[in-house]
């Protein structure tokens, strides 16, 4: 369960101070599917970074389960990201020089999993997204939808508690968008994970249990 209490995040821009999150207090229970919408520059990215232990708030606390993310060091935050949080990005962010299977394996590397187990679990994850026969392909040899499936396999292969998706369908056509969303929803239901999706697409947002709207750093229930 996420707990955000009075979270404020400010950045020092060239000539002024930018408040990306303004005194946000928010709870996200375990297993909930949440969609976050809002205008560009409204604070969606910053909120996702706080939830993903990628950044620390200027003030306030962010907790995931028993861990207060805002007070942990880099090494422990990296450990939490490795074990508990999965990421899916708009532009897939696959390593271009690694095959689909090897890209999935990168998520297990920090967990100290043996080579054979790593390959077996990664192969199974690829099969679960329908890409068992594409394991030796490089990202450039896959379509956008297939690349996003590989990214989802990479996010889920370590069986995280939380899956954070940043515009997961933003670079896909409508048909592929629906396939990816069905895939994500399927995993959410099957694995009971907490799914947070940042999206501009209302069709995607409507599939969520809960919709949040963020504007000028302030979060409201939609």
């Amino acid at each position, binding site marked *: 369960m996420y707990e955000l209490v009075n979270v404020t995040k400010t950045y020092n821009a060239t000539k002024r101070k930018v408040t990306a999150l303004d005194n946000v207090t928010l709870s996200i229970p375990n297993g909930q599917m949440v969609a976050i919408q809002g205008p560009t520059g409204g604070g969606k990215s910053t909120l996702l970074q706080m939830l993903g232990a990628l950044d620390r708030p200027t003030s306030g606390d962010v907790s995931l389960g028993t861990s207060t993310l805002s007070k942990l060091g880099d090494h422990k935050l*990296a450990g939490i990201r490795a074990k508990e949080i999965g990421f899916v990005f708009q532009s897939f962010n696959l390593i271009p020089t690694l095959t689909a299977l090897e890209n999935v*394996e*990168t998520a297990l590397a920090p967990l100290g999993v043996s080579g054979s187990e790593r390959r077996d679990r990664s192969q199974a994850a690829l099969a679960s997204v329908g890409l068992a026969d594409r394991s030796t392909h490089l990202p450039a040899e896959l379509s956008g939808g297939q690349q996003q499936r590989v990214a989802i396999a990479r996010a889920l292969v370590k069986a995280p508690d939380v899956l954070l998706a940043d515009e997961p369908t933003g670079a896909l056509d409508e048909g592929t968008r629906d396939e990816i969303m069905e895939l994500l929803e399927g995993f959410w239901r099957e694995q009971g994970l907490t799914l947070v999706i940042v999206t501009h697409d209302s069709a995607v947002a409507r599939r969520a249990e809960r919709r949040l709207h963020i504007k000028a750093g302030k979060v409201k229930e939609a």
Partner: protein
Amino acid sequence: MFGTYLRRELVNRRRQTIIIAIGMGLAIGLVILVNSFSAGVQNAQASVLQSVYGVGTDITVSQAATPPTAGAAGGGRQNFSFGSGSGATSGGTTNLSQSRLSSTPTQTVFADSELTTVKGVSGVAAATGTLALENTTFSGQIPGQGTGAAAGGTTGGGFGGGQQGTTGGAAGGATGGADGAGGSAFNLDRFSVLGLDPAGDSVGPLSAVSLATGRLLTAADAGTDNAVLDSSYATSASLATGGTISIAGTTFTIVGTVDSTSTDSATASNVYIPLDVAQTLSSNPGMLSNIYVTASSSSGVDQLAADLKTALPTATVDTQADLANTVSGSLSTASSLVSNLGTWLSILVLAAAFLIAILFTISGVTRRTREFGTLKAIGWSNNRIVGQVAGESVVQGLIGGILGIVIGVIGIVVINIISPTLSGSASTTGSGAGGFAQRAAGAAGGAVTGGEGGAGGGFGQRGAGGGGFGAAAQTATNVALHAPFTIEVVLIAVGLAILGGLLAGAIGGWRAARLRPAEALRSVG
């Protein structure tokens, strides 16, 4: 994962890998080449020095020559005096010949008790003493007097010779005039003689020779009139093993001839005779001119040299490094070229290669910002990412190292095929400082008592101060340069490759570690 990721990066970013590897390869190849060339030049210098000082000689001890006292009789020079009965007259022509053995003018002899002192110094593995001498033979003919010459004719003559060199000059040859004057012919023949301990060939000049014919001197030759000749000198003087050679009027049996182990070079002396015999014949009993020392440890040579200077305050103590400085000629030029241009060129190219590797690595990290941000987002620690970047750089460096070894080996092979011949010469006196004076002093040197009608003859040449010159004898040697390929060269290449890779990897990794995942993932938001 580390190996897979590394392999994929190197293969898929092969242009960067190739550029870094070629840069490192060229630099390391040049370092190998300069290093090998330098070793070849050092070997050539050692070869030149060996021909003079012998194999294994770490230190030589000598005494600096002292200039002759101005106005002293003879100035310390050879002086040939012929009495009224010295010549053998036949058919009216008087034949004169006198031979003497004396120490070389550029060296000062010293008591052999210094050898005992040297052997007593800690760190001396072996030491032997030698006495460098020069045999000078003055011979000539004084023709009978012309018509009407008074009885008595030439009854005495005095000749003083002070030439320095290895071969004798000739004088005279003029035909006598009607009045009986002139018509004398004189020869001056000189060769170098080295008196040495016949049993001590492990260190000193005879350690750098190979037997050509006959045998070397042995302990049994002490006190005997046996000699070993340099084969080049023997050939030029038409002498051979089994024959004889006259030294200071004593007939020596030639028991063998020797060659220098160095290509195209002569040995340290023309003739080698037992030390005790040399001391007796040259009137230098118990005296030496040089001591050759082998140190117990090559790393302790400098300390030993310092200890020897303390033990023998008036002696000149030279190490191999000091002796190497006495090598001149194209060998010296090559040595200077390597130590100056070669070294600086290597440093510059190596620095450029390291810089290229560092810049490419930083550029690669910058280009892969999102990649590293993604990896951090999925839980990769900074250490893992730094290790990955450093690993890639080290492997690129190692590929460069292998390429450098190939380039270096090709260069070494080319040098060895061309095998340039370098000439070098080393002063046979460590100090080389001993000047000696030579001055023509007019025709009044000889005391001549001529009979009536006899022209008589007076020849004078003596050292009497004046302009001194330090023409120490030189042994010229031509050495074919051979650039060696050693395991040290490979270790240098691998070491530089790893150093370059680590340097680039450390800087690149440090840059990657500084990336904050949120900033690296610009795609988020």
